[in-house]
């Protein structure tokens, strides 16, 4: 039904385009056109399709909830909870569709009939309204075509609106992120105190699993302490940065100051490809090669090492981040104006003195910005920690023990089937929003530092 309606509107729009163009050619014989003939076509087509499709979209969004309100009106006197009402509505819909297999009560049957009836009314109303709108807007548009009004401007204003709406897309994604995270997280914080979450030191969400009824509140209090996860996340990120910063920076300095044109020409694309290797590959490498290797070395030195040590995960993550830091710091240092270098050389400074005393300090804000971006990446990195670090949340500062991170816990909790409404599932969203806030802060600071730096040298 909907498909037919949309196809009809689109076909009509195409026809009106050709019709508009033809009309323009007719007008041309008697008076000067206000725009190219195709704009007359676009004008009609836009007036044909846009209002009808907008109404159609709005209708499709609001119809289900309106129908639902009508159906559930009959149940208001029964004092049902929200979940029970939802269940009844699902049953009614299934019954109406003929896929319901449970007990059919009279009341339910009645509702299902009402549902079918309402849907029927809604459908015919929708078709009628859309046809009316089509007729109205087309006749309106046709009249201005006849009057030979300006045609290009309205079409261009319409296009501009389309462009504007597209650019709202990015904002919508952010709003979507914030709301989907907040919605579940707020429900989580209704069950678990926010204080217990931020300052609790035990993370055992599996403990709260209860087959029937509510979990024990005492258990809940002690199961969702996120401190070990925060600590683990930053600890592994710290290990990663210990690997990535020195190597990345040195390679960035080499590329921007020492490497010849030939090397740069090949090294840059290769680094770009390195940066594009999926993290799951690094994760596999960490779990299969680096983890056991670290364990073997540790054992040979007489140390107790877990096969899933924070060290292994952190080190591999560091390797992953090297190309990122290297290429960002290379860009930043290349942007340092040549006259600073010339000034230093003119005073007789050597190359390494120039790099140490002039270029590096000048590029420092940009480098700090790129390091912050790298930290944000390390904090948000998921697959390496899921595969190579432990899944139990230990509060430890020993790089040889296993620890877990925010991202790894989100995956562990949400892998497989989720039950919405379960505090364990909701806790993943609470973790998600903490992750979002942390990375957002890092990004905002980093981007503003980098932006200031760029403005300075532009």
């Amino acid at each position: 039904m909907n498909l037919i309606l949309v196809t009809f509107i689109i076909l009509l729009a195409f026809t009106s385009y050709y019709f508009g163009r033809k009309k323009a050619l007719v007008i041309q014989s008697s008076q000067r056109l206000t725009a190219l003939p195709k704009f007359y076509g676009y004008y009609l087509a836009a007036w044909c399709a846009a209002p009808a499709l907008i109404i159609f979209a709005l209708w499709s969004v609001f119809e289900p909830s309106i129908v639902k309100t009508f159906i559930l009106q009959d149940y208001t006197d029964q004092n049902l909870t929200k979940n029970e009402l939802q269940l009844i509505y699902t049953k009614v819909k299934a019954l109406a569709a003929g896929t319901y297999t449970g007990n059919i009560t009279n009341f339910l049957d009645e509702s299902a009939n009402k549902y079918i009836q309402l849907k029927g009314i809604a459908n015919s109303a929708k078709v009628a309204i859309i046809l009316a709108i089509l007729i109205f807007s087309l006749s309106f548009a046709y009249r201005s075509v006849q009057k030979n009004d300006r045609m290009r401007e309205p079409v261009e204003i319409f296009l501009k609106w389309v462009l504007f709406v597209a650019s709202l897309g990015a904002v919508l994604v952010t709003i979507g992120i914030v709301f989907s995270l907040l919605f579940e997280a707020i429900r989580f914080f209704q069950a678990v105190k926010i204080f217990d979450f931020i300052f609790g030191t035990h993370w055992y969400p599996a403990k709260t699993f209860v087959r029937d009824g509510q979990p024990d509140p005492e258990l809940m209090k002690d199961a969702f302490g996120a401190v070990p996860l925060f600590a683990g996340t930053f600890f592994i990120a710290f290990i990663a940065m210990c690997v990535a910063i020195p190597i990345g920076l040195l390679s960035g300095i080499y590329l921007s100051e020492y490497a010849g044109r030939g090397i740069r020409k090949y090294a840059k694309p290769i680094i770009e490809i390195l940066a594009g290797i999926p993290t799951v590959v690094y994760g596999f490498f960490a779990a299969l090669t680096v983890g056991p290797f670290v364990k073997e070395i540790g054992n040979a030195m007489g140390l107790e090492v877990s096969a899933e040590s924070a060290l292994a995960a952190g080190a591999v993550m560091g390797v992953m981040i090297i190309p990122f830091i290297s290429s960002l710091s290379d860009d930043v240092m290349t942007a340092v104006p040549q006259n600073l270098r010339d000034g230093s050389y003119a005073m007789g400074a050597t190359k390494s003195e120039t790099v140490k005393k002039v270029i590096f300090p000048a590029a420092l804000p940009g480098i700090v910005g790129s390091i912050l971006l790298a930290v944000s990446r390390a904090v948000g990195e998921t697959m390496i920690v899921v595969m190579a670090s432990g899944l139990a949340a230990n509060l430890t500062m020993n790089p040889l023990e296993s620890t877990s991170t925010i991202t790894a816990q989100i995956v562990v909790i949400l892998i497989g089937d989720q039950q919405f409404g379960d505090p364990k599932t909701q806790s993943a969203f609470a973790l998600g929003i903490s992750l979002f806030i942390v990375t957002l802060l890092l990004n905002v600071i980093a981007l503003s530092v980098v932006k200031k730096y760029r403005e300075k040298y532009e």
Partner: protein
Amino acid sequence: MTSLDPGLPEEEDRQLIQMVSYKYEAEVKDLLLKNPDYLGKIVPIKLTASDDVDQVHKGNYPRDIPEENRRVNDYQLQIYDMLNERGDILSEFNISFFTSPDSREAELAGIASSFMGTVFSILVCLAFSFPVAVLAAIYLEEFAPKNKFTDFIEVNINNLAAVPSIVFGLLGLGVLLAVFNLPRSTPLVGGITLSLMTLPTIIIAARASLKAVPPSIREAALAIGASNMQTTMHHTVPLSMPGTLSGTIIGLAQALGETAPLILIGMVAFVNTIPGTPVDPAASLPVQIYIWSESAERGFVEKVSACIMVLLAFLILMNLAAQIVRHKFEKKWS
């Protein structure tokens, strides 16, 4: 197999059968259906070895540990050695790795379903992100007035580009699955989730290459009486396309390797059919790597390595394509 030594006791018979993949019944059946005249004759046939025998053959299983710690017992080893000496164990290129879907048995598992899943997800991702991103970039670069709201959109896009991918997975789970009730585990949802991630990447690339089009071109078109929209659509946008396209390919390559958000929207489910449409359940290549690397059997390690090679080959191809597009078609403005 049984013909090696008819009249075997039942226990040994079972152990023999374990040496070939459980697919052997189907393999024999197919052979007979194709060649009905084989019925009643004794013909040599090729069967797929089980992953354990495969590992013995490749020398990955140590043979000097006690029998109870081994996955291949003494009897099976003895048979293996006998067959090996007779030259009856062949290693062939594993074509079925590319044509079969996932399986619980390492020797049968292939990447066909995850490969198709990846292809569908990327196509959906491209279909959603590219048009929106290009239109948004055009608006922001060519038409947007300088005000607080456009600044806000701009900050938003820059930040979105640095949001961890797993957060997009939560968005997909919390909105696409829970609110819009789209089908779980499907490339459709995976592709939309990835497209939200790719969106800012493409917008940033498209804006940069729009900005690189020199103002003199815009002036030339405007001065001859083109409107802003015509100038943009006839000149600026076509000239910016190489940069936009190479940015898009880079963004898609990122999406191709993305794992975490797809796990959250359920693309880790075990799928042993090859999806034919974007709304069939499927895995994707990186998720397949994750699934297999979590499996205990030694045989999967090789599958993971093969899968990684396929994935990396794709990424390198895409990156090369992006760089070729950028260098070959991009105009150098003097």
